[in-house]
């Protein structure tokens, strides 16, 4: 990448930045870290007194990426984590589409196994041939990907943060990360004081890890009695999903997934009763016993549907750095965009976080792009035919910073 072609855009952005857009709670207590464009190094342990100083620092250094600490410290500028003296840690959730299955990945993602050399398309954590987790992945973030990410954010906020944890709307700040997903910051003192063990428990809950693996054991111990839809929180959502699955399935489907004909007949005979029971406050899950090993599948599916794929490391690690809102993501040229809960519905990341709107550039493609339609800025592009094309500057920067293309002429 020819840094001289992209750096001026960043410089201009930080020069014109309004310090008011850098209103970070307890800014002077946080560590800042800047990724230097030229040396490709992270400069850490910076501290600023206020947003005006921060803005000056940014425009002087023109960083490629800007991060700040999720924790506040007594001495944020000291290089040693112990010496910094942590005060508290914000609760932050990270939803990254990299970790979430989306159907569109079949079209635009692929992987190559470093162990056996086989390759395939779509979303996977390990080689479909030899099971090895060491894969080289090629992935693209399309419009649909970020729609999926958005719906995960909504699930996290509405079901877990608002309904379960009782966190208020104005305590939640959503930030589009500028690339593959969203960060959700919770600004609530009680939750900032939770230690990592307590955070771990929240994460386990939101991701449904224990539920997925122990729900059946748990049911057995409770003699298959558990709360139903008329209760609240997780038990209620779970019962609702399971009911949904049951209602959607007819005799034929049940036989097809491997439940014996006799058992299906029995089940159908008591279907009304099951439905009624699931709808009540206490539900009888006894019917799961009769479908044996298939019950595991039904439950896993239901739990996956009500869980949210968050990256637990971001939430648990209290020395984490997180991207600063209103900085530029150095791999996309998009703005790290803060949003309120009510903005989320209408927010289109590839339209609303575009910063550089004036001008065009001619680009050369250097890495294969998927053959898909891509909405970016106010236009629609076909990614397969962009070589040597004249494109809006924002798209040129997006593809260049992402190492898909080179700008060879600014127009």
């Amino acid at each position, binding site marked *: 990448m020819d840094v001289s072609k992209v750096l001026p855009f960043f410089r201009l952005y930080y020069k014109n930045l309004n310090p008011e857009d850098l209103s970070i709670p307890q800014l002077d207590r946080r560590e800042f870290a800047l990724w230097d464009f030229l040396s490709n190094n992270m400069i850490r342990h910076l501290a600023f007194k206020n947003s005006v100083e921060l803005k000056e620092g940014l425009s002087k250094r023109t960083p490629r990426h800007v991060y700040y600490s999720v924790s506040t410290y007594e001495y944020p500028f000291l290089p040693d984590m112990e010496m910094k003296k942590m005060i508290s840690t914000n609760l932050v959730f990270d939803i990254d589409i990299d970790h979430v299955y989306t159907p569109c990945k079949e079209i635009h993602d692929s992987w190559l196994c470093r162990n056996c050399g086989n390759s395939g398309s779509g979303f996977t*954590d*390990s080689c479909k041939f030899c099971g090895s*987790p*060491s894969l080289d992945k090629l992935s693209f973030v399309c419009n649909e990907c970020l729609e999926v990410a958005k719906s995960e954010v909504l699930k996290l906020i509405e079901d877990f943060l608002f*309904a*379960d*944890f*009782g*966190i208020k709307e104005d305590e939640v700040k959503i930030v589009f990360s500028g690339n593959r997903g969203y960060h959700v910051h919770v600004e609530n003192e*009680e*939750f900032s*004081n*939770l*230690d*990592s*063990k*307590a955070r*771990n*428990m*929240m994460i*386990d*809950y939101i991701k*449904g*890890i*224990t*539920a997925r*693996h*122990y*729900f059946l*054991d*748990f049911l057995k111990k409770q003699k298959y009695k*558990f*709360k139903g839809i008329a*209760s*609240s*929180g*997780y*038990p*209620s959502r*779970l019962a609702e999903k399971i009911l949904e699955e049951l209602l959607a399935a007819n005799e034929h489907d049940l036989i097809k997934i491997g439940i014996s004909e006799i058992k299906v007949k029995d089940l159908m005979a008591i279907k009304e009763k099951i439905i009624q029971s699931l709808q009540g406050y206490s539900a009888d899950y006894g019917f799961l016993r009769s479908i044996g090993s298939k019950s595991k599948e039904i439950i896993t599916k239901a739990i996956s549907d009500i869980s949210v794929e968050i990256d*637990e*490391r971001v939430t*648990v*690690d209290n020395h984490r750095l997180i991207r600063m809102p209103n900085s530029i993501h150095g791999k996309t040229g998009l703005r790290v965009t803060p949003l309120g809960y009510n903005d989320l519905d209408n927010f289109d990341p590839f339209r609303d976080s575009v910063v550089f709107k004036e001008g065009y550039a001619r680009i050369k493609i250097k890495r294969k792009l998927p053959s898909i339609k891509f909405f970016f800025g106010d236009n629609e592009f076909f990614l397969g035919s962009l070589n040597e094309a004249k494109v809006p500057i924002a798209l040129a920067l997006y593809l260049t910073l992402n190492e898909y293309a080179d700008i060879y002429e600014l127009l």
Partner: protein
Amino acid sequence: MSFDVYELSKYPFLDSLKDFLRLNDFKIEDLLKQPNEVLNAAIEKIKSLAEKKSESVYPPDIEIKRFVLSMYIVSHLGSFYIERFAERESKKLSKLLKEEDSEEIFKIARSLISARIRRIERRTKDPKFPTLMTYAMPIKDYLKYAAYLGDYNWSLAFHEIKGGEILLTSRELVRILEEAYRQWIIIKCNEMREIYTPEIDPLVEHLSKELPLFRTRKFDEKVVYKGVDPPCMRILISDLKQGKKLSHMGNFSLAAYLRAIGYSVEETLELFKNLPDFKESVARYQIEHIYGLRGARKAYSVPSCLTLKAANLCFPESPGCDNIKHPLQYLRKVKDGRK
């Protein structure tokens, strides 16, 4: 001002403790200066920690003073005694609470955890128990304590949660109270540690000669994989070294892990001596079991990351924990990375 001294002697963390101490002109320095009934009772209480003896019971007002004084002395004996003390007192609490009615449990929960805890009476269809008491606890308080219980039954998913509150049965509440009390004692002791009176020095010196010493150093010299233990194990080891209590799963996983990285039974046992509820014969038996020297004669393997996660013992770090399913993979990864 009136309060129930008998109640306070059972539950010395109640808010009335302050008033009681003020009214009785309680001063730690005075009690430490020369032999007296309270001091003797406190020393007896502390010695019984090491000797597994049950302690004798005194009249309520002496009991209360004895409790506070022994907390003060224990806090100066160091974290190993603090942990043991907290462990025993909190066990006593849950035993007492099992005999109490919901009124008293509720009162204690509000005093020990939060005044925001609510009581909800529910009708049931069971004619024998027509009403059932449930308790609504702020979720952040629940997390603070349940996170240390390490059993999947405490997982949030298996409870009803709404608007920042979690619903608990009375049995669950009692278990949470036990943990809350344990943490309360530890916090109080750590505060008391900062309060210095010259009289404490000779007493601590005298006591530490009589009490068994809890070794802490030994382990550092034995680390084979220094600095590359997976974070889950690193945390267990450091908790243990500080004399903290581990969950069952924590004990089990760590012993299996130590076996895997080449610790002998003796070496593992040595480390486990730091446990506040350590009993050599029991621990040895369990460790030998895990090592496959007893019972089925099959050594237990280290649990997978998934199991550790479910027991709330996993604290992943990047990049070592990325894409791994088993803590031993972490060792391989980190070792490879260093070559």
